[in-house]
């Protein structure tokens, strides 16, 4: 086996002697690449953002921005990354480097003040710059005037501002950063990172990186992972490490054995069958979003509200369900969609409805040694769906309450109602009583107001720093009233 290494800004760099829990951020900084910063160490501020070459959706390779503070460096074994230092073209000795186009726009438009968040913004912006199909015009658009197709969140150059939803700036108020983002053109002829997209991304390395008493493992196959889990049931399973990275950094947790599953081919398929859609548990949310391209509207409504683009570039459905948090954003949606989970174990596979999956706070029917392989969503989909996430901040926040609706309304009567709730109990739950209060009733003000009373009383919401219990309860009822208003009124703006 080749010694674990990473290609950083074109230079092959051995991972040793970093500890297996060392984050990519600390690894880079210890090697003198101090452009990437630690602002929060939990994937919330984006000051650590770097670019990783990943298998692409529309081209062989995508440049994907991720939080270097969350990814263990060992998880990047065999991969190629680019940092803010690597985006600029070095000048002749003693001369200043030539700035990358996104760096140039950020610099000249006043996009940096203290500069601490800037390298991270630059990397997130570069990822969007290289997104295939971004440019509305082949030559790229100049200027920031709202043009056809542009709005406050999408530039005339096709730039989606959600690409920067995981980056925080405390100085600028964001306007000049938005101007810079909306001003970048298309990559020039011969741009090396643009060209790199045409070749395939590095394969996942089979990794066994051990230092002292701990080890980071990346088996090449599903059976290899299941074998590790049988031998070492205490092993921590990670995909994008967006949850485990927080545990390591904020709660100082350390594991003797971490097993990565994010590149297992068996967990990375997306198949649309006649009666269901099967989504691999290790596909990132960004991959699912791009590959489904709106074909599951409720998921399409969820994704922009799920953490940030930086997190969605690493996070997986398997991870969101596997951690079993009662405030994860995907369970309410998947409950409303009546999804089931395909669990793989040494004895084969079994399918469990999501509604039966959670058994208690961060507990589930998943047995030791079992892995979530895929999520199945039955077809056809209910025609009326909505996802209401209640949070303090619209981009990248954790929900106080989340409500997902999937309704079939035939001839003005609710034929079927499925409602998933997050944040109101120890687990995500279905609002069964509310579903019963709706089904078979006319879709009318009377029905909805009565059902809203039922919904408002579901679960046992609590008081905490995100919201009061009273607000949480109120929001359950309000979400149904809002859905009704949206379906019955021609909402003009």
């Amino acid at each position, binding site marked *: 086996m080749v010694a674990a290494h990473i290609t950083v800004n074109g230079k092959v760099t051995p991972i040793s002697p970093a*500890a297996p829990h060392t984050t990519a951020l600390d690894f880079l*900084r*210890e*090697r*003198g690449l*101090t*452009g990437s*910063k*630690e*602002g*929060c160490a*939990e994937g*919330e*501020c984006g*000051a650590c953002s770097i670019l990783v070459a990943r298998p692409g959706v529309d081209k062989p390779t995508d440049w994907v921005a991720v939080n270097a503070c969350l990814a263990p460096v060992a998880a990047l074994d065999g991969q190629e990354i680019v940092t*803010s*230092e690597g985006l600029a073209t070095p000048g002749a000795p003693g001369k*200043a480097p030539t700035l990358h186009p996104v*760096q140039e726009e950020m*610099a*000249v438009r*006043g996009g*940096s*003040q*203290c*500069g*601490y*968040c*800037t*390298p991270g913004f*630059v990397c997130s912006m570069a990822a969007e710059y290289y997104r295939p199909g971004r440019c509305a015009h082949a030559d790229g658009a100049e200027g920031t005037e709202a043009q056809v197709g542009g709005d406050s969140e999408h530039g005339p150059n096709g730039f989606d*501002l959600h690409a920067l939803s995981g980056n*925080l700036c*405390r*100085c*600028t*108020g*964001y*306007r*000049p950063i*938005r101007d810079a983002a909306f001003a970048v053109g298309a990559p020039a002829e011969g741009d090396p990172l643009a060209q790199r997209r045409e070749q395939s991304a590095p394969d996942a390395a089979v990794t066994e990186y051990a230092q002292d008493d701990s080890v980071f493992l990346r088996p090449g196959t599903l059976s290899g992972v299941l074998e590790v889990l049988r031998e070492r049931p205490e092993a921590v399973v990670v995909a994008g490490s967006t949850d485990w990275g*927080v545990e390591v950094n*904020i709660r*100082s947790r350390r594991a003797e054995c971490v097993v990565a599953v994010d590149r297992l081919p068996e967990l990375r398929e997306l198949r649309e069958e006649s009666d269901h859609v099967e989504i691999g548990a290790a596909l990132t949310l960004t991959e699912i979003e791009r590959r489904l391209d709106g074909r599951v509207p409720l998921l399409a409504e969820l994704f922009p509200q799920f953490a940030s683009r930086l997190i969605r570039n690493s996070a997986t459905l398997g991870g969101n369900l596997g951690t079993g948090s009662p405030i994860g954003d995907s369970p309410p949606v998947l409950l409303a969609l009546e999804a089931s989970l395909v669990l793989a174990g040494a004895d084969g596979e079994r399918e469990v409805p999501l509604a039966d999956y959670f058994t208690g706070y961060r507990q589930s029917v998943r047995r030791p040694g079992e892995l979530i392989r895929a999520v199945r969503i039955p077809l056809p989909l209910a025609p009326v769906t909505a996802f209401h996430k*209640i949070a*303090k*901040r*619209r*981009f990248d926040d954790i929900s106080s309450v989340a409500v997902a609706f999937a309704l079939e309304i035939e001839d003005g009567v609710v034929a079927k109602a499925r409602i998933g709730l997050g944040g109101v109990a120890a687990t995500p739950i279905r609002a069964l009583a509310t579903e019963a209060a709706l089904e078979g009733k006319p879709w009318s003000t009377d029905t909805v107001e009565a059902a809203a009373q039922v919904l408002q009383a579901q679960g046992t919401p609590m008081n905490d720093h*995100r*919201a*009061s219990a009273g*607000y949480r309860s*109120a*929001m359950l009822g*309000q979400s149904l*009233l*809002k859905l009704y*208003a949206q379906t019955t009124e021609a909402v*003009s703006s």
Partner: protein
Amino acid sequence: MSHLSERPEKPVVGVSMPHESASLHVTGAALYTDDLVHRTKDVLHAYPVQVMKAHGRVTALRTEPALAVPGVVRVLTVADVPGVNDAGMKHDEPLFPDEVMFYGHAVAWVLGETLEAARLGAAAVEVELDELPSTLTLKDAIARSSFHGINPVMVAGDVDAGFAESAHVFTGEFEFSGQEHFYLETHAALALVDENEQIFIQSSTQHPSETQEIVAHVLGCSSNEITVQCLRMGGGFGGKEMQPHGFAAIAALGAKLTGRPVRLRLNRTQDMTMSGKRHGFHAEWKIGFDAEGRIQALAATLTADGGWSLDLSEPVVARALCHIDNTYWIPNARVEGRIAKTNSVSNTAFRGFGGPQGMIVIEDILGRVAPLLGIDPMELRERNFYQQDQTTPYGQLVTHPERISAVWEQVRANGGLTDRKREIAAFNAAHPHTKRALAVTGVKFGISFNLTAFNQGGALVLIYKDGSVLINHGGTEMGQGLHTKMLQVAATTLGIPLHRVRLAPTRTDKVPNTSATAASSGADLNGAAVKNACEQLRGRLLQVAATQLGAGAADVRIVEGFARALGSDKAVAWDDLIRTAYIQRVQLSAAGFYRTEGLHWDIKKFQGTPFKYFSYGAAATEVEVDGFTGAYRIRRVDIVHDVGDSLSPMIDIGQVEGGFVQGAGWLTLEDLRWDTSDGPHRGRLQTQAASTYKLPSFSEMPEEFNVALMENATEEGAVFGSKAVGEPPLMLAFSVREALRQAAAAFGPAGVSVDLASPATPEAVFWAVQAARSGEVRREDLPLDGGEIPARPIALSHA
């Protein structure tokens, strides 16, 4: 025009340009304090031993278990302090406390070969505590009379007579939250021992001279043995004015004791749980209006949550009192300030420094009473604007009061307010579940440190034989663009192109006894000092050039790098001029100095002229509120702000925009929540991370954001006619809060008075909408002479 404000021919000041470090920022090459660790050999890492109780006396501290952890080198305790065990200027802030005063107070520090070793060592230190009762909330502190520091009273006119003559009198109460700085770069210091036991400290500090002073008193040595350097900060916002000193002292102490470099960098949780924040306040008030809605009298008591030690709470409260008038003339006033002593972090400077906390009180009052007076809020504000020859309640004449209405009128015009108010009314009539509102608020902010002595600045300017210029000054760079402006000031004064001037990092061995880069005064004080140094040099060079040009020195000008006599084409290039000057043994370095003239402040009487001038601005904000959830968007913001004649327009606009969004964060989103239960974590900050304490992100940015600088706005009393800009724009964000209040009111019957919690989170707005719908406080319910506005508990108690 004054000498200080006059601009020469072809000035470099006033030219719009990006931050001087922009290229270094975007490539990641710009160095911050903690980046230096990776360029330094044999560094030890410091980690705090935090005690997770709100209050208690330390009865035992056992460090032996830590020393048994592999990689732990030393544990620093009070026994190691050779000098004074104090991290502040008030002698109430022990560096190593024997009494834990807040949840997370550090009682010792562990030095390790790695951060991991230091962390494990800190976890191994055993601390025993006799727990004591704790005071956490402002209400508890007030009930127990737990106060410290000054208790100033500001009196103007005859407040009782004012109320007696008022047609309407209202009383009320208002408590609002503080704010975490959340500079992206947490506190950091790196200390090295030079030869002869001298200490060199790299620190992320807004106040290098005070960091130096405190390190010296902790180490028991003289200031000339300590050098502090600040390369740049990844944001400061006031949070690095007083708070860095103790952390630098720990690093310095560790370096002195071990002989090795010591690095201290707080992680985000440590930073949020150990360092002070913007003061939250409680206000009780009584206000009287005449029949036309003109303020006749104001009585108020403002209580700041000072936290466990005084830090800067006294001047913060003084500035709050000095800003309760904002842009409004209050002929009769009695305003008292108090500082609550609580078991929480020691609250400190934060952009605005009490000014926002004073102003929000009057803006909240006007927003609440306007519907009860039956006057449009915009109209009510206009009627009360300062006019010529009126003075503030602390006795200072308000200069340029016409600018209050000038920026206001320009905002109305730029924002097309008349049409938009009509459009909003039509929108609201057609949308039962969504309401929009547009509010305008103004700002008047006093510039200068309240304490007169701080209003001085120093600089050292060096010209080398090759004609290149290096400037040093006492101000620090935290992103605000001070260094950019200083380069422009130097190039303008010397008459040379900008690229000939470089700027050295801020160091205490270049310019001594500097004031904090604070109070928005960085460019005023240091710019005037740089200008003064450059003028000394220019005066000497003009003599040299005059001889060469055969003209009198008074007739020589240096413009764009060439010296010419008036009316002559003959020119001497800068580089030749410098070479000649050197050969003629002319001194090519100068120390510049500036003291702000005309200031006077009597803190005891709370009267005087503490401010050199006032900065003005106005903002119009339109919001849209969802009645189902209370969620909202900022649709459009128009701002006109007075920065005098801008030294650097792109930098100034950046300050206005950034300040506004930061203010909007404080008022709407950022939510400091402490555990006030009697449970095991009483006193714990519950929102101690970016995942729980939410800053504004792109989603809070105004969808349309127009900022204009007031034109022809020369300020005679400041460098090149400019004005300070760092703090005042933050307070333009009151327009967001008032717009939210008005949008909430639009869900209810006409004339409803809306009480809005601060921060106005979606939840708080939802409860305000619900209260408005119920028509809780309406004009028609009140007696004609006004009356008590029922103090509705803030929304969260509805749970």
